[in-house]
């Protein structure tokens, strides 16, 4: 069972990574980040159930990750809104002030 869960998680992670690196819309980038986090969560849960040493720790840890991810998403969206007010756009490639 484990390999299919891991494959699933890997596919999810790759989709998330692709989205985070390629998509122009910052909202979509944030969503992609969530996707990557969830792929990790899936791994954690899968190992806690089917791993060499099954343990509840993985599930509890994934709960923590979900909590932190929620907070992260809230902050991310807040920053995004502030940026939108400032620049009038949510396109990631226009946020290039670090270059100068």
């Amino acid at each position, binding site marked *: 069972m484990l390999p299919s869960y891991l494959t699933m998680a890997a596919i999810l992670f790759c989709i998330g*990574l692709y989205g*985070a*690196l*390629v998509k122009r819309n910052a909202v979509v*980038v944030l969503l992609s980040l969530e996707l990557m986090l969830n792929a990790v969560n899936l791994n954690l849960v899968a190992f806690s159930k089917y791993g060499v040493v099954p343990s509840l720790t993985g599930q509890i840890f994934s709960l923590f990750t979900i909590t932190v991810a929620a907070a992260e998403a809230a902050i991310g969206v807040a920053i995004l809104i502030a940026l939108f007010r400032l620049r009038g756009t949510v396109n*990631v*490639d226009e*946020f*290039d*002030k*670090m*270059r*100068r």
Partner: protein
Amino acid sequence: MDRYTQAAWLIPLFPLAAFLVLTALGRNYRRAGVFIGSFGSLVAFLLSLLIVIDRLGANEVDYNYSFDWIVIGDYTLRIGFEVTNLTALMLAVVTLVSFLINVYSAGYMKNDERITVFYGYVALFTFSMLGLVLSDNLLSLYIFWELVGVCSFLLIGFWFTLPKARAAAKKAFIVTRIGDAGLLLAILLLFWYMPDHALDFTTIQSVFDGQSGAITNGITTLIALLIFLGAAGKSGQFPLHVWLPDAMEGPTPISALIHAATMVAAGVFLIARTFDIFQDSAAAMETVAYVGGFTALFAATIALAQNDIKRILAYSTVSQLGYMMMALGLGSLTGGIFHLFTHAFFKALLFLGAGSIIHAVHTQNINEMGGLGSKMRVTAWTFAIGSLALSGIPPLSGFWSKDLILTIAWETNPLLFIAGLAAAFCTALYMTRMFFLVFMGKPGAASSSAHESPASMTLPMVLLAVLAVASGFVETPWNSSFGSWIHDGSEEAHSSGVAIVGSIAASFLGIYIGWLVYGKRSVSRTAFQERTPWLVKLLERSYYVDELYAAIIVKPLKLLGSSLMVIDAYVIGGIVRLTGAAASCAGRAAARLQNGQVQAYGLAAVIGFVILVAAIVGRRFLP
């Protein structure tokens, strides 16, 4: 009876303290600076005098105090100070001349802006010279040896705004450096071959005295010759004499102190201190004697044709140092040191007299002077005494010391005796020429405004004149108290009728001819120049030694230097520039990556991560 001798280490500390205080005070305390400098050397002189009195008793043992300085593995380097009769004598001479120079400079340097700097340098020099004299081993002697060289450099270049002074300072430093390299090699050789690597004079004496065979003859000769190279550099012996005449660009009191009485005598002192090494090697002794004898005659002939009053005295110094070397080379420690002792007084006196004249007429060309005798009576009288002493007229001090050297030469080496006689004749001739041109005859172009110098300048001259008269009586053909004092009672008096008559005859003949030409003018001054212009020209240009060195040493060195410059500029510089260019190219390329696109950075991070993972995973598949 060595109450004061134990405190000998204090002597150099007074000038050192004076130097530190003068340096700390800065340039504004002009009068205070003069007093501090003079006071430091006065205390040092009084202490030295006490030590000499201490040691006048018969057969005083040498006092030595030393402590561990550096311990490396099982080798211990000890330094300390040693007081022997020879060092006590040198202490007294150095501190006395130094004190008199301090007093004299108060007048001579009065209007110089950097007078306190001058006094500071003089104090530093006195400290170094006393340290050199007191050193009980070759290593600390070498340190002080270099220190006096630095002071000499600083003081020759004291008026560094004059290009000639700068060049002279550099020349003095570089030429003496050649000799110093020899001395350093000698010390290294001694360190290598001596039992227990000992460098102190007591051990050197016992090793070379006892014929213990610890060091082979060849090595002994090599060491002795290298030490002589160092001494020749410092004491202006041929072929390293070229710096001394140029060193006259410095202030005149410095010429008197450093380049006549003390530092240039350091070479003679060094040989006297390591005399046992020389006595073990006949070849080295012969070299010293012949180089000394040659230098004595060579420099004396040059002095005949010079027109700069200080250059005449400088060549005369070189010539007299040659006498001292010749005496040492002929095996007479007494002769060398005795002449050093008397020469210190009368040559310092002559330089101070020359300074007094230059102070009055503001030129150094003796042809522009003349008739100064009536205007500067004290200077003229003291200068006359100094000249007669230098010429070797009995009973002045120079006669006794020169006569002792000539007697020894007569007994051992007739060739050198003749060279010494010829040099004595030339000495008397050029001193007479100088005296008549400066003090007698019609007033010259520059002598209209001449006046006697202030008391601070004439007083030291009078004192030195007294010493120039009296200091010779410590060693006469009938009384060798000086020799036995220096030598621990092992030298007997020399006397030889031929030498006495010869030296007196040579001196008087020189003076008589000088008087005929420059005093009575019954012989034309230019007669010689008309007959043999090439000879006069040769002497005027000092046998073209400077030109020769410029052609065979300086030019090739400069050529080598400029060719190395080309290599430096294009090969090494090219590599450096290439490295710089490569780095900036890489930087420019890397700067392209920084485009502000967060996603591009993310992609770079991911690629890096993938490469890392691939490397770690891929390693498993390698053998």
